[in-house]
C-alpha cells in the first residue's frame, strides 16, 4: 500500500467536532452522596430509587478500578467530573419536533442526521438524548398503539416503577464491575423499551447520543425487555464534539429476552477519538449484557466501533433458556493513538444453547486493539455450540493487534471452535485487483469492505449505510 495513503489515513481529522452552545443546568464537579441525592431529586425519583443508587455508590467506593485490560491511560479523577448536566427548562419539554430548540436541530443538521427527515423517511422513532435528558421523542403514539413502551429511563422510573423494580439491575447487578457500579449510582438518563407478549415492534427504535457540555461525564442506562414472542430492533449511534479534555462515558445496557423473544441491538460508535497525539478523546467504559431468560430466546449484538480514545466494551449474552441463541458481530477500527479492548462474553447455561461470534479488527496508525472474549460452557449446557472467528488487519507497522480469547468448557457434549488470524492487506491481493484495472484505492476499499462484510450485513439497512460511510471516513485516503 502506498505510504502517502497511510499518511492521509493517519492524519484524518474528526469531521464532526463542534460545540453547540446551549445553557446547561450543570452540577459542579465532584461526587458524594449529595451529588447522587441531587441527581435523584432532579429526576423526581421515588425514595427506593435513591436508595438503590446510594447502595451502588457505597459498593463502588469499596471497589478497585480494573487494570487488566490492554489499555494505557492516565488515572481518571472521578472528583473532577460533573455528574449532571441538563438542557434548560427540563419541566417544559417539547412535545414535537417543532418545539425542539432550533439549536439542537442545528446540531443534528451539522451531523448530517436531519432528525425530521430521517424519522419520516425511515419510520424510525428517535429518543434523542442530548446531554443526559431526553428532549425529543417521536412516533410515541404509533408505538403506544402496538403496546410498546419506549421512553427515557427517568420517565420509566416514574411511570412504570413495577417494571423497573422487576428488571433494573437484574442482568448487570449494581456491583457487577467498577464502571457499572458508578453508572448505577449516577446514571442520568437513557432509554427504556418494553415490548409486551407477542408484539413485534412496528419500527426500528433508535437513540442518538451526543455528549455536549464540557467536562460532563455521560452515564446512560438502557433497559430493553422483550416478553414472550416479542421482537425489537434497537439502534444506537454516537457522535461527540471535539474538545480537549477526556470525557468519561460509562454506560450500562441491559437486555432481557423471554421465551421466543428476539432482541437485536446495533451500535455505531463514532465518538471523538482524540487528536494525532492522542490528546482529548472519549473514554468509553461500557457494560452491555443481555440475558436470554426464556427458551429459544435470541439476542444479537452488532457493533461498529470507530471512535473513542479508549474503548472498554464487552457486549455479552447469558444464555440461560434452553436452545437460546447469542450473537456478536463487531467491526472495530482504531487509528491515531486510539486504544480498544473489546470483545464479548457468551455464558452458556441452558441446554442446547448456541453462540456465534464474528469480530473484525482493523488497526492503523499508532493504535492498539485487542479482542478479549469469553466462551463459558456450564456443566448443564448439554450440546452447547460456539463458533468464534476473529480476524485482525494491520495497516502500518506502528500499530498492534491482539487476541485474548478465554474458553472455559465444563461439558463434554459441547462443541467449541475458535479461529483467529492476523495479517495485512496482501500485496498479491492488491496486485490481483490492479491487474484488472482497479485503482489501488478502490482495491484497498474493496478488500477492507470485504473483510468487514460479515458484520455489515447484520446491520439494519439505515445503519449499514452509515457504517459504510463511517468506515470510508475513518480510512479516508486509503480507501477513497
Amino acid at each position, binding site marked *: 500500500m502506498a505510504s502517502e495513503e497511510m499518511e492521509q489515513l493517519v492524519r484524518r481529522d474528526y469531521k464532526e467536532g463542534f460545540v453547540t452552545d446551549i445553557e446547561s443546568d450543570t452540577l459542579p464537579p465532584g461526587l458524594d452522596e449529595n451529588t447522587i441525592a441531587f441527581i435523584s431529586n432532579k429526576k423526581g425519583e421515588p425514595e427506593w430509587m435513591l436508595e438503590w443508587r446510594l447502595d451502588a455508590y457505597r459498593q463502588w467506593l469499596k471497589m478497585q478500578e480494573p487494570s*487488566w485490560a490492554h489499555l494505557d491511560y492516565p488515572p481518571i479523577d472521578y472528583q473532577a467530573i460533573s455528574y449532571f448536566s441538563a438542557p434548560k427548562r427540563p419541566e417544559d419539554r417539547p412535545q414535537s419536533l417543532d418545539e425542539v430548540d432550533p439549536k439542537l436541530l442545528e446540531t443534528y443538521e451539522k451531523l448530517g442526521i436531519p432528525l425530521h427527515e430521517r424519522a419520516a423517511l425511515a419510520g424510525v422513532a428517535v429518543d434523542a438524548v442530548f446531554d443526559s435528558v431526553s428532549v425529543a421523542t417521536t412516533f410515541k403514539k404509533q408505538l403506544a398503539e402496538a403496546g410498546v413502551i419506549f421512553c427515557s429511563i427517568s420517565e420509566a422510573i416514574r411511570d412504570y416503577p413495577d417494571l423497573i423494580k422487576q428488571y433494573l439491575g437484574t442482568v448487570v447487578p449494581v456491583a457487577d464491575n467498577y464502571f457499572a457500579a458508578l453508572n448505577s449510582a449516577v446514571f442520568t438518563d437513557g432509554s427504556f423499551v418494553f415490548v409486551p407478549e407477542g408484539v413485534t415492534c412496528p419500527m426500528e427504535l433508535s437513540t442518538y447520543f451526543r455528549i455536549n457540555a464540557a467536562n460532563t461525564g455521560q452515564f446512560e442506562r438502557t433497559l430493553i425487555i422483550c416478553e414472550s414472542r416479542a421482537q425489537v430492533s434497537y439502534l444506537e449511534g454516537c457522535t461527540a464534539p471535539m474538545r480537549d479534555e477526556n470525557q468519561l462515558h460509562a454506560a450500562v445496557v441491559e437486555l432481557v429476552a423471554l421465551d421466543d423473544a428476539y432482541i437485536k441491538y446495533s451500535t455505531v460508535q463514532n465518538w471523538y477519538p482524540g487528536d494525532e497525539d492522542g490528546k482529548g478523546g472519549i473514554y468509553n467504559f461500557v457494560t452491555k449484557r443481555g440475558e436470554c431468560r426464556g427458551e429459544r430466546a435470541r439476542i444479537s449484538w452488532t457493533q461498529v466501533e470507530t471512535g473513542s480514545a479508549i474503548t472498554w466494551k464487552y457486549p455479552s449474552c447469558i444464555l440461560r433458556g434452553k436452545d437460546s441463541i447469542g450473537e456478536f458481530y463487531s467491526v472495530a477500527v482504531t487509528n491515531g493513538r486510539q486504544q480498544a479492548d473489546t470483545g464479548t462474553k457468551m455464558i452458556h447455561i441452558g441446554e442446547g444453547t448456541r453462540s456465534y461470534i464474528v469480530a473484525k479488527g482493523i488497526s492503523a496508525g499508532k493504535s492498539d486493539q485487542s479482542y478479549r472474549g469469553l466462551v463459558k460452557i456450564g*456443566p448443564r449446557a448439554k450440546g452447547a455450540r460456539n463458533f468464534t472467528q476473529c480476524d*485482525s488487519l*494491520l*495497516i*502500518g*507497522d*506502528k*500499530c*498492534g*493487534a*491482539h*487476541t*485474548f*480469547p*478465554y*474458553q*472455559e*468448557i*465444563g*461439558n*463434554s*457434549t*459441547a*462443541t*467449541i*471452535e*475458535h*479461529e*483467529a*488470524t*492476523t*495479517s*495485512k492487506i496482501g500485496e498479491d491481493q492488491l496486485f490481483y485487483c490492479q491487474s484488472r484495472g482497479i485503482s489501488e484505492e478502490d482495491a484497498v476499499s474493496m478488500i477492507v469492505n470485504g473483510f468487514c462484510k460479515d458484520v455489515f450485513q447484520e446491520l439494519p439497512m439505515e445503519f449499514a449505510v452509515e457504517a459504510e460511510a463511517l468506515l470510508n471516513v475513518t480510512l479516508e485516503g486509503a480507501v477513497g
Partner: protein
Amino acid sequence: MSDTQTFLDTLKARSQQRGAEPTWIAARRQAGAARFEAMGFPTRRDEEWKYTDVRSIAQGNFALADNAEFSQASAAALTLPLDAYRLTFVNGVYSAALSNLDGLPDSVQVMPLSKALTDNHEAVGGPLGRLTGVDFSTFAALNTAFMEEGAVVRIAPGTVVDKPILLQFLSREGAPVMSHPRILVEVAGRSEATLIEHYAGQADAANFTNVVAELMLDRGAILNHYKLQEAPLGDMHVASIHVEQSRDSRYSSYNLNLGGALVRNDLISDLNGQGAETNFYGLFFGQGRQHVDNHTKVNHNAPLTFSNENYKGILDDRAHGVFNGKVYVKRDSQKIEGFQSNQNLLLSDRAHIDAKPELEIYADDVKCSHGTTTGQLDEEAIYALRTRGIDEATARGLLTLAFAGEVLEQVALDAIAERVELAVAGKLPERFNLAGLVEAAVALND
C-alpha cells in the same frame, strides 16, 4: 505469607548444612529466596494462575530428600528402553548407580549440577540463571533458592551427539519430599542433540518436583527436547522451561503429560535471531481428578522467525485441563510466521478445559493464526467404524488414540511414542481394552 514460611524454614535448615561453596552460588540462592518471600505463592487472582490453584503445594509440608536409594529392579522397569547417556535423580538426589555416561565423547559434557558447582565449573558460573532469572515466577525463584542439583549439558560447536541425553527423575514412596532440579543446556553453533526429561516413580509417591530448565541454542544449533511426564498420580509437578534461540537455530519441544495430581508447565521460547524456528508439540491426558496446566509463549523478537504449535488435550473423569498459548511479535519483527493450534477432547461430562490462545502482535507483515476446538468424538466416524463391525467402545478408543496420534506421529523416538500410546490406551476406561491392541501393533512393528 505463612505458606512461604514453611519453605523458608526448610531452606534455612538446609543452608546451614552446606559446606564451603563459591560465594556467587550463595548470593544467587539468596536472591531467589528474597524474591520468593516477596512474591509469595500465586493465587487464582493472578491472571497467569487463573485456572490453577496451587494451595496443595503451598500448604504442603515437604522435606528434602537426603539419599538416592531406589531398587535397581524397579528403576529398570521405569527406565525408557533407549540407548542413551543417562543421568538419574531420585527425589532430586543424584544417583551415580543408576546413571550411565559410558562412551560420552569429549565434545559433550554431561554432569550433575552438584559436581559442576563443587568444581566451580565454567559451564555454570555465567549461564546459570541467565535465562530464568529470579524475577521469572514464584516457582522459578523457589527453585533458585534451593538449587543444588540437576543437570549441566554442554555441547561443543559442530557436534552431532550420537545418542539422546536422558535425564531421569524418579519419585519415591514415603513421607512427601520436594526437589528443585535445575537443568542447564548449552548447544553451541551447528550442533545437534536430543534431550529427554523423563519423570516417573513409584505408584504411591506424593512428592513435589519444581524443575527449571534453561536451554541455550547458538547459531544453527538443533535441539529436540522431549519431556515425558508420567509421574505418580499423587505427585505435584511444576516446570519452567526457558529457551533462547540464536540465528537459524531450531528447537522442538515434545511435551507429553500423563501423570501427576497437579501439573503446571511454563514453556517459553525467545527467537532472537533471524531464521530461528521453534516447534511446540504437546499432549496432555488427564483422568481422575488430575489437573494439567500448560502455558506456552513464543516471543518473536527478531524478523524472519517461525513458530508452530500443536497442543492436544484428552480429559476424562473429573480432570481439569488448561491451555494458555501466546504468540508475541515484537515491534518491527517483520516476515513472521506463527501458527498455533489447540484441540481438546472431553470424554466425560465432568471433565473441564480452560483454553486461552493469545496473539499479541506489533508488526504488520506477519502471518499469524490460532485455532482452538473443544468437543467430543465425531459420531459419524464412530458410525463408520461400527458399520465395519467394530463395537462402539473399541471405536471410541481407536478414535481417541488417533486423536493423540496427530501429536505422537511427530515423535521421532519410538520408545517414547509407544510408551505414551500404551499409557493412553491403558488409561482409557477398561472396557476399551486397547492396551492389548497397541501391544500387538508394537509387536508387529518390531
